[in-house]
């Protein structure tokens, strides 16, 4: 195959009754991020620069919508935002013309940065990690509460510190030393998540054995929805946690980046999979992976590393490795991932109720989706 490829995700585990408008907005946000990455790839940016940019750009300004939108399919190639002439009849793209760039990290639709899930104390603790597959250098941050762009701080840790992982006060101090943009923590707290936190507490969602349904929780939702939980939180209250991007560039270099606002009602100081190299993020010279979902299950499964290890040690394809990782390695856990291989393949796999994602390859294939 060959050529560049890119995938972005906005988290796994979507409420099946998410309003259609929110679904459309999510598609738009995903496509916008994807196109940003595509433009960068076309300008010969390196994989690690592209993944950071896609996850980061969200922090540079809010989306300005111009009036109107139209549905488009690839039978009318001129309206494809990438300018491609692909006539893949399987694609249906719904998108909006943007006045300026739209972010992932600061898009309240996706939990990470603005719109972060609140801890049990109502505070914000953001994590991020980035890995450059060609060098296997990596950078990660945890426990941020005032840094506007966690993914860029992770990149600074990778490039400008002798370490791979900084957290909490030390990470915040490093951010200030290096002139990273700092805001008041209230910037990341939105009304919707304050309400969600209250509801999650009421649902007593985080229990020791979170796979058991909450006792005494009554709801009008269908029985199926009652039983569907993500990370111990009823799916109707759950907001997908994370954004991520994986890229293989024109030179076959792979990179991955993941950024999260955490888990609703989590214990303060809880760290999930997103900043852990090998769990939520991994890149080597064979592939790059960004995972999302039930953080503890992803950590136990060392999910991102396992995709690469399966390819490297068993010699199987990217698709086979992702299938194995999702369907065998996660065991009882729920999650999803996006991955690219050095020969230009890109894939998404998940065992959750939906995953926000968008993929594109150099030969013009593009897709955006929420559900199976």
């Amino acid at each position, binding site marked *: 195959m060959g050529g560049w490829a890119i995938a972005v995700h906005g988290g796994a585990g979507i409420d099946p009754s998410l309003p259609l408008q929110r679904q459309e907005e999510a598609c738009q946000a995903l496509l916008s991020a994807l196109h940003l990455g595509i433009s960068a790839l076309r300008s010969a940016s390196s994989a690690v620069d592209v993944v950071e940019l896609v996850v980061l750009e969200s922090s540079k300004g809010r989306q300005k919508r111009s009036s109107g939108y139209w549905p488009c399919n690839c039978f009318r190639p001129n309206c494809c935002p990438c300018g491609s002439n692909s006539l893949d009849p399987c694609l249906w793209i719904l998108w909006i013309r943007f006045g300026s760039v739209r972010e992932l990290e600061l898009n309240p639709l996706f939990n990470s940065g603005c719109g972060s899930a609140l801890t049990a104390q109502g505070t914000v603790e953001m994590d991020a990690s980035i890995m450059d597959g060609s060098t296997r250098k990596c950078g990660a941050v945890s426990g941020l509460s005032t840094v506007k762009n966690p993914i860029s701080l992770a990149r600074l840790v990778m490039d400008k510190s002798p*370490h791979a992982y900084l957290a909490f006060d030390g990470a915040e101090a490093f951010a200030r030393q290096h002139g990273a943009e700092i805001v008041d923590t209230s910037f990341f707290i939105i009304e919707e998540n304050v309400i969600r936190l209250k509801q999650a507490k009421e649902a007593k969602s985080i229990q020791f054995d979170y796979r058991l349904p909450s006792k005494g929780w009554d709801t009008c939702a269908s029985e199926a929805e009652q039983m569907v939980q993500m990370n111990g939180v009823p799916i109707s209250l759950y907001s997908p946690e994370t954004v991520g991007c994986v890229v293989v560039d024109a030179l076959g270099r792979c990179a991955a980046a993941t950024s999260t606002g955490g888990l609703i009602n989590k214990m303060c100081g809880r760290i999930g999979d997103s900043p852990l190299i090998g769990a939520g993020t991994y890149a080597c010279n064979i592939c790059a992976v960004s995972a999302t979902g039930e953080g503890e299950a992803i950590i136990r499964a060392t999910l991102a590393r396992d995709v690469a290890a399966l390819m490297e040690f068993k010699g199987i394809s990217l698709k086979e490795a992702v299938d194995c990782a999702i369907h065998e390695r996660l065991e009882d856990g729920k999650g999803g991932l996006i991955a690219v291989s050095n020969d230009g393949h890109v894939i998404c796999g998940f065992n959750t109720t939906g995953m926000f994602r968008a993929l594109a390859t150099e030969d013009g294939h593009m897709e955006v989706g929420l559900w199976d």
Partner: protein
Amino acid sequence: MEACIMDGTTMKCGAVSGLSTVVNAISLARLVMEKTPHIYLAFDGAEAFAREQGVETVDPNHFVTPENIERLEQAKEANRVQIDFTQPAKGDIRKENAEANGGDSQIGTVGCVALDSHGNLASATSTGGLVNKMVGRIGDTPVIGAGTYANSYCAVSATGKGEAIIKATVAREVAALMEYKGLSLKEAAAYVIEEKVAKGNAGLVAVSANGEVTMPFNTTGMFRACATEDGHSEISIWN
């Protein structure tokens, strides 16, 4: 201080970072594993959990020794982050010794891997981190798959330069080579230490489900000991 524990039978794990008052970091990691729905707690949140659980805490000064202060001064002077604790050298040869030993002596991180008589595997690692590290720096010890890992194939505890161990996912790598490539424990561990981590950066101890033990390292020495039920035992520092 950081610590991590993993049960290879259940794949349950617990990790803590950023502790400054907890006397037994590894026991707190175990409590995270057993008493919370999470795996990893850090800094203030971990300290708060420790108090909730009533574990023993002391003043942070308890952990600061004159030797450590001297090591820190040496490291700052050499503008270096040291892999671990060298002997604080005296007088004129101080700088030379520090450079010669920098990266090669291992006292600060401790780890243990075990296979019990029922065939269960487990791993635990605990560290005070790097001399002269940045505040808030997290190393490989609490990162599942990097410094600590256990599954039904093997249990691994690694030590050395955390950043190198993280990017090589050392502990998981040993297990993955056994599981996906069918290597023996010795072959897998040797391969990871020799090929996947730069010289001078790592060592590990590991046991496998069939009772193999291995303790490879690419530093000039590693404090280690092992024993098996059939009576074999070993204590070593050097090659």
